[in-house]
């Protein structure tokens, strides 16, 4: 159990990169009137993610998992510490990373195709080429038939597929996902989870995602990183030992190991939660 990827599917190398989070801290300062509150969202967090690995970040609200993801993307800067992607330091948003946003965040005035084209457009890819790439990615996520529909004409699941295609369109080395399927119904979510694993098998991208759903974390990830709040930090890292390839998620869900690992993480999470509740001063 040295290399978490050893017994997992090791995809053929494409555009993929390792990520190294080194001693990252972040504090948010909020002012209400004269009172200044400091929230230590991330407190000296370090984590290495191998190329082609899938890592899930999970934990209670306020543990800083979304902030960590935003720092990885470059939307937020760390106060101290640094993030390396493929050995080079992250100083802002970059061509090697893209994000599948919570609730998709599609542009309502653009068609599915137009939304997927956006990232390529921003990078100055010529029109015919970006159209071809966008169609290809929509095909990849199973939306080849709905390219002309506006987001309001798409279901929640289809919207998030467009979001996924948009993130993949720029061929990132690292794919980030912020609670990508949280707002979807259970069946749609399972369909998309299988889709993510299939895309991972085909493209070999490094994937880091935030989720509240422990099932999702255990199903998709090679490692589940459990974070804890106040201050935001990594509580424990769980390597997931499920046989690869995880093509049939229904069978995977039914396995004993799946239940056991899910329970182990859940137990740790709940222990932390009750400790948290006990530590908090009673509010009267």
């Amino acid at each position, binding site marked *: 159990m040295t290399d978490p990827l050893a017994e997992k599917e090791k995809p053929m190398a494409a555009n993929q990169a390792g990520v190294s989070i080194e001693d990252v801290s972040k504090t948010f300062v909020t002012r209400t009137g004269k009172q200044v509150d400091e929230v230590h969202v991330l407190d000296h967090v370090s984590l290495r993610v191998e190329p082609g690995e899938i890592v899930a970040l999970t934990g209670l609200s306020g543990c800083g998992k979304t902030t960590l993801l935003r720092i990885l*993307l*470059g*939307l937020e800067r760390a106060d101290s510490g640094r993030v390396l992607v493929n050995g080079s330091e992250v100083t802002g*948003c*970059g*061509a090697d990373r*893209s*994000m599948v*946003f*919570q*609730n998709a*965040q599609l*542009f*309502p*005035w653009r068609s599915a195709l137009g939304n997927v084209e*956006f*990232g390529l*457009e*921003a*990078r100055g890819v010529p029109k015919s080429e970006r159209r071809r790439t966008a169609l290809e990615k929509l095909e990849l996520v199973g939306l080849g038939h709905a390219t002309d529909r*506006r*987001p*309001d004409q798409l279901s929640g699941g289809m919207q998030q597929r467009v979001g996924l295609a948009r993130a993949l369109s*720029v061929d990132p080395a690292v794919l980030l996902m912020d609670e990508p399927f949280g707002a979807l119904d259970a069946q749609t979510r399972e369909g998309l989870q299988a889709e993510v694993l299939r895309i991972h098998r085909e493209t070999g991208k490094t994937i880091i995602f935030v989720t509240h759903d422990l099932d999702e974390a255990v199903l998709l990830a090679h490692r589940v990183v459990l974070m804890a709040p106040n201050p935001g930090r990594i509580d424990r890292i769980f390597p997931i030992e499920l046989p690869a390839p995880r093509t049939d998620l229904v069978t995977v869900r039914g396995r004993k190991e799946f239940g056991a690992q899910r329970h182990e993480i859940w137990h740790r999470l709940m222990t932390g939660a009750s400790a948290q509740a006990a530590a908090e001063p009673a509010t009267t």
Partner: protein
Amino acid sequence: MTTTEHGEQRAARPAEPARTRPPFHRRHRSGLITTASIVVVLAFWEITGRRMNPIFSSYPSAIVRKFDVQVRSGLLPQALLDSLQPLLLGFCVAALIGIPVGLLIGRYRAADAALGVYVTAGYAMPLVALIPLFMLWFGLGFTVKVVIVVVMTVFPIVINTRAGVRAVPRALTEVGTSFMASELHIVRKIILPATVPHIMTGLRLGIGRAVIAIVIAEFFTAIGGLGGQIILAGQRFDTAGLFVPVTVLMVLGVGLTHLVGWLETKVAPWAGPADTDQD
């Protein structure tokens, strides 16, 4: 062949009961009430108007007769044209100034700090007070009418555009940033389209104010157009003649506002009307 198809169609869904359409008076309930209300008011006006001194009041049938006369003589079409030209030109100029300024001060705090105060002042103050000044600067002709329309129309457009920019969810602009879009790209491809529903609201409020502005302009400057007709009719104690341009202006205001409202559903079909900044 046709008959067979028809027969098959009927056979395909025999069980479905014929859905009865609600009767006419149910389907158009509010429309019927509105019509009835207008009929009652016009009838009341007709009856009472006939009993009053024609110098002080008129009544619908007299106004219609006058309308007919003025259309035939070409007086009314000419007045309408004289009013419409500066109105539409002024409105377009106001849109061309107002939308970029609104985008600018909505997006950049520094720009808002520098210019926002004038926008607020211009929106709040009675701009009619400046008309004598405009007459000194621009004379009594076509130009001054355009200027008055621009000045009275531009502020609601600016204010609504600014409100629209402020209402663009940060999550959407962050998508742009995350794909390394330039600031110009973000403004043109995210902020502007996201703001379109608010801009259209501004234009809708603006066109209503433009109609008011042109009438005021025609009262104060060279007497002409529909506003001029009103003044002239008043001076001649021709009350029926006074109501003709008033009615035309009312129809014009309602019509133009509806036109912009219709345009709104065409250019931003993804959004409902963004009526957050109505005045």
